[in-house]
């Protein structure tokens, strides 16, 4: 495929609000995870019942940051998270420039989220009316539906092109890049805002608890001692445009989306394929679109959830397909597993590495599980490193066996790779 220019990006999560804070946290290996029972005041998103003993990546400032009056009908935790993130890194200005250049109708939106605004419906069920229906304050059909976040972002950015919500669990916002490339290739739009937004909710907390996947310690991806995942919340955005357009060349150090691959495991709803067939098919498709070989990739942000099954399958894939010198890292010990937002948040971590703003490590992990072998132990980097990545891959694997791999590079002088 023809590479796409990444003209602007921003992100917020427990490790940092805006990319400067995020880059600083990655370089210092400063984790945003906190012990849930210690959070004061007790978070309302967690719902009733005894506190669950786990660690979470909560963005602590949301309670005090309501939306502006003009957007107040959309007010809930995930829209606040999206709004706060949009204010960072000049993102709104970059979108305004694209809107002016192409026209608002030629700027599209693809937003990935897993649970969207479910937390608002959860709150309504805790406060039902005497008639058994939603309380008046929550009777907003546009807010209690998966597309609510995309509709909010579309309104907040004054976009008039097509808007779609992609909701494939933990691969959602990685797949947003795939849809955006197809829209640009087919000429539907001239610029696309890709987004990933996921807020903490009782569904996520108790859903993963019911699967016995929550760790009672901060998650330790790929460690022999790993005890499960730590959930987190995040919003992240990027602006994509065609690379051949002169106006977008040269901005942002010529960051490019080089390829993407999507594939299904066809195996199980909540467990990965034991040989990682779907994940490897997604990697193959991404490499084929980019016209590069796996051995050329020098930075990988792993899915690395710290669940027993995911990490075993992914470690084998990394050892099989990447060079021994690759810098592979799993950042969910810093941010928490931000579900539908993880694909875009971790794409941003790749973009920071490509800009020379630090290559992240694998927080909380003492050593790679010896069961994964010596090659993987060499590939997995526990400590952050300075220096610039040249070709970066990001892995996102979700429930329903839904896999997506993204490839990013800095396109200085490379022209069009692949076909």
């Amino acid at each position, binding site marked *: 495929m023809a590479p796409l220019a990444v003209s602007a990006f921003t992100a917020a999560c427990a490790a940092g609000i805006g990319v400067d804070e995020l880059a600083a946290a990655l370089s210092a290996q400063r984790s945003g995870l906190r012990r849930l029972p210690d959070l004061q005041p007790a978070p309302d998103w967690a719902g009733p019942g005894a506190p669950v003993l786990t660690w979470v990546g909560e963005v602590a400032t949301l309670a005090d940051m309501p939306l502006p009056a003009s957007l107040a009908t959309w007010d809930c935790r995930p829209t606040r998270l999206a709004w706060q993130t949009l204010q960072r890194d000049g993102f709104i200005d970059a979108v305004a420039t694209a809107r002016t250049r192409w026209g608002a109708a030629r700027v599209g939106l693809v937003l990935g989220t897993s649970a969207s605004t479910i937390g608002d419906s959860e709150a309504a069920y805790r406060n039902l009316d005497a008639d*058994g*229906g*939603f309380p008046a304050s929550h009777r907003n059909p546009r807010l209690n*539906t998966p597309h609510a976040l995309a509709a909010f972002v579309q309104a907040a950015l004054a976009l008039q092109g097509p808007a*779609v919500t992609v909701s494939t*669990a933990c691969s959602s916002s990685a797949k947003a890049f795939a849809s955006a490339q197809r829209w640009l290739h087919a000429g539907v739009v001239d610029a696309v805002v890709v987004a990933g937004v996921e807020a903490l909710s009782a569904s996520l907390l108790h859903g993963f608890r*019911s699967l016995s996947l929550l760790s009672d310690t901060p998650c330790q991806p790929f460690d022999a001692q790993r005890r499960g995942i730590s959930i987190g919340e995040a919003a992240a955005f990027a602006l994509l445009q065609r690379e051949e357009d002169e106006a977008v060349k040269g901005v942002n150090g010529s960051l490019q989306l080089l390829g993407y691959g999507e594939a299904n*495991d066809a195996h199980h709803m909540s467990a990965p394929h034991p040989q990682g067939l779907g994940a490897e098919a997604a990697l193959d498709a991404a490499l084929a679109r980019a016209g590069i070989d796996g051995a050329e990739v020098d930075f990988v942000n792993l899915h690395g959830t710290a669940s027993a099954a995911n990490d075993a399958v992914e470690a084998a894939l990394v050892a099989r397909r990447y060079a021994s010198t690759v810098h592979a890292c799993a950042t969910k010990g810093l941010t928490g597993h931000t579900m539908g937002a993880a694909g875009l948040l971790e794409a941003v971590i790749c973009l920071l590495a490509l800009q020379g703003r630090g290559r992240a490590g694998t927080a909380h992990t003492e050593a790679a599980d010896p069961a994964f072998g010596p090659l993987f132990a060499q590939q997995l980097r526990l400590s952050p490193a300075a220096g610039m990545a040249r070709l970066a891959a990001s892995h996102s694997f979700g*429930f329903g066996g839904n896999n997506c791999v993204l490839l990013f590079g800095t396109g200085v002088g490379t022209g069009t790779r692949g076909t």
Partner: protein
Amino acid sequence: MKTQRLYIDGIALWSPALPGWAIARQALRSEPAAADPPVPRPNPALLAANERRRAPDAVLVALEVAAAAVAMAGQDAATLPSIFTSAHGDLGIVDALCCTLATNPQWLSPTRFHHSVHNAASGYWAMATGCRAASSAVSGFEASFAVGLLEAATQARTDGTPVLLVGFDTAARGALASVNRSRGLLGVALVLAPQRSAASVFSLDWACAAGTASLPPLTSAAAKALAANAMADALPLFEALAGAEDTPLTLPLGPAGILRLRTIPLPA
């Protein structure tokens, strides 16, 4: 944008009153038909009996129409990329999930949780057919069929491959029914191909544009009876596909966009 052409190789629709395309096609043409009692749930042969019992309605109806459209197109389900679109996912599951979380969150069952993901139908389809091709699950509120069609059309165009498009929505249950207006159960599916083949029954011209539109009025009583389902924005196209006319249609594509369509029947 410039108008682009695709071909429709497979068509399916399922609702309790219209359990299959042969019956639905007649009813959407307003032709008189024998009034059979409604079928409460679809019974997709792809799933084992125990899976059928446990699967949510949304998964059942999606697999039913997906299998029917792929069979009509003569395609191999195991290699076909797919787009599953739904405004709300399975609302019975959302209601049960929220009820449990509000009262006894420790009782939430893992099966209910993984059934609550929007890509549950996509995941079950991949497992039932052994298909590892790309599969997505999307949503667009009142324009969910239109955004799903946009996703499938751009994928068929970009990758030069046939794509399965499945749309479904369920009835709001419990407290959710006070805020969510979706009623009834409806599934629709198309196989869209970039090249004409012996299986092609219609050409489909499509283009996105700026502007606003309301959903074209439905003509058949059968389609009007399904208008309260959240996948109802599929119905004008399926009425056109039930007929044999050259039909232009404009569907709303969110608050500020439209999807222009034109279906032309192809000689057998």
